[in-house]
């Protein structure tokens, strides 16, 4: 530390730095303008910040709650025409009111409130009951209104409900904050919803995400595609009797226990299979087991796409119209998912923030790309290659 030039303290990010003079001093790390030169040891701004942190109850709200509510507000902006009112403070109890515009008019959801502060059991729903007649309770809100418009420009009931449920779940940060403030209430498992506070909890979340990631799961062929595949019933003298089914590795033959085994399905890539051999496969993956021909567009994978309409170079980038149908993203309603779905499933008036979040959601998938592309064009490990070697 230099004695000549005292450091500055940033009240916004709490860092000690030398400010950028542009021309007024701004924080070098967060570019905030609330900076203070630390020249008087008797009035050290760090102490101010320190005591502030130690006593979150001093001004009613834990320090993190402001940030949380702010970010909550910005998250909600897309679906809510009228910005939510935050922190109608009554005494020391933080409270939030959302106004949600649905197809059926405006609804108000209240979170928190005086009488829930010291009673965690009430926090799971957190709506002020009974005494406000015009305001629906959470359960009332969750009930889907049959008259509700399905394609309104705002977040619709079930989606909104999912989002709020994620927020208000048993372990959610909000109720923990309400219940005990930041100091008291860290859960034993280190998790609050999708928030984690220790390595083990982070491991669990990552493992969970990996196990539930469906981005690479094969897409099954549709019933219609399967029904329209050409079928041939084997007869004496069929040319097919010379060939093998690559699934069971048996030659086609006339005398079979199961009469279905005399039905041969030939995929568009000309590879033939027993009916009972190929159908279960197509119902799990709409591809040819031999050459990976895609009966339906599949997520990116290693094998060279062999569809006749695709060239080997450009087909890794699926055209917008032929994106593989997204499977159910899983039924675990974490905050992360709820927010993602809120962005991707909401209206199409996307903001730049929403686009960013969507990209983050896909990041997981693009992370796995490098090893793929590195062997684009080498197919030595493809099933077809092996069978040729082995048979």
């Amino acid at each position: 530390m230099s004695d000549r030039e005292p450091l500055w303290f940033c009240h916004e990010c709490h860092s000690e730095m030398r400010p950028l003079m542009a021309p007024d001093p701004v924080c070098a790390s967060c570019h905030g303008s609330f900076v203070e030169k630390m020249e008087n040891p008797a009035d050290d701004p760090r102490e101010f910040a320190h005591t502030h942190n130690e006593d979150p109850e001093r001004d009613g709200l834990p320090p993190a709650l402001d940030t949380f509510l702010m970010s909550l507000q910005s998250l909600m902006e897309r679906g809510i025409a009228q910005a939510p009112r935050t922190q109608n403070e009554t005494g020391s109890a933080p409270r939030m009111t959302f106004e949600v515009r649905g197809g059926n008019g405006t609804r108000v959801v209240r979170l928190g409130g005086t009488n829930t502060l010291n009673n965690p059991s009430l926090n799971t729903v957190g709506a002020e009951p009974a005494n406000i007649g015009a305001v629906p309770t959470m359960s009332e809100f969750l009930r889907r209104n049959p008259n509700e418009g399905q394609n309104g420009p705002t977040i619709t009931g079930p989606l909104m409900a999912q989002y709020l449920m994620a927020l208000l779940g048993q372990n959610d940060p909000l109720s923990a904050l309400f219940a005990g403030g930041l100091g008291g209430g860290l859960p034993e498992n280190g998790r609050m919803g999708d928030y984690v506070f220790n390595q083990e909890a982070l491991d669990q979340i990552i493992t969970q995400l990996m196990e539930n990631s469906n981005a690479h799961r094969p897409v099954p062929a549709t019933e219609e595609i399967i029904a329209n595949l050409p079928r041939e019933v084997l007869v004496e003298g069929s040319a097919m009797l010379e060939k093998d089914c690559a699934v069971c590795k048996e030659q086609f033959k006339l005398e079979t226990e199961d009469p279905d085994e005399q039905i041969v399905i030939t995929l568009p890539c000309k590879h033939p299979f027993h009916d009972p051999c190929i159908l279960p496969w197509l119902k799990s993956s709409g591809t040819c087991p031999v050459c990976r021909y895609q009966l339906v567009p599949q997520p990116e994978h290693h094998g060279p796409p062999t569809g006749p309409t695709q060239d080997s170079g450009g087909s890794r980038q699926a055209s917008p119209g032929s994106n593989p149908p997204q499977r159910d993203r899983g039924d675990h309603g974490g905050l992360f998912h709820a927010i993602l779905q809120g962005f991707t499933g909401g209206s199409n008036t996307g903001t730049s923030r929403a686009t960013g979040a969507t990209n983050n959601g896909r990041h997981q998938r693009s992370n796995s790309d490098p090893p793929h592309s590195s062997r684009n064009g080498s197919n030595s490990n493809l099933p077809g290659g092996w069978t040729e070697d082995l048979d």
Partner: protein
Amino acid sequence: MASISARRLAKELREIEGEGCPVGINLIKADDFATWWFTIEVMGDSLYQGEVHTLQFRFDPQYPISSPAVQFLVTDGRTAPVHPHVYSNGHICASILGNEWSPVLSVVAVCVTLQSMLASCKKKERPVDNDRYVRNAPDNPKKVCRFSDY
């Protein structure tokens, strides 16, 4: 009527017993159509010279539509090879064991693929997320292994 799974495995077993396994691969246990064990050894110059590892295959009734659960055994003194795609609990990160499985593949084909995965290894090291993964690994190794080259 025997299930497709049993018929297919019986056929694979007949071929293994009739023609033998590829060099470096040996069947050591196939008492049923549920669990088979092989020893696997990388032949020629490689980082794994002289090492013999044991591979376990577990089949469900949907085999070969569903992939076998394949892992290295790490019990009774056996070890998993140190490889960027092999976790220390024996689980293997190989796409053909997961989403890139095809019913055209066979037990022997998987063995050969894993053998070549070891043979081509440039540096003996565990996956970067080994500790994290092993702490929370599911029993079934089929749940991992999406992003590798094999």
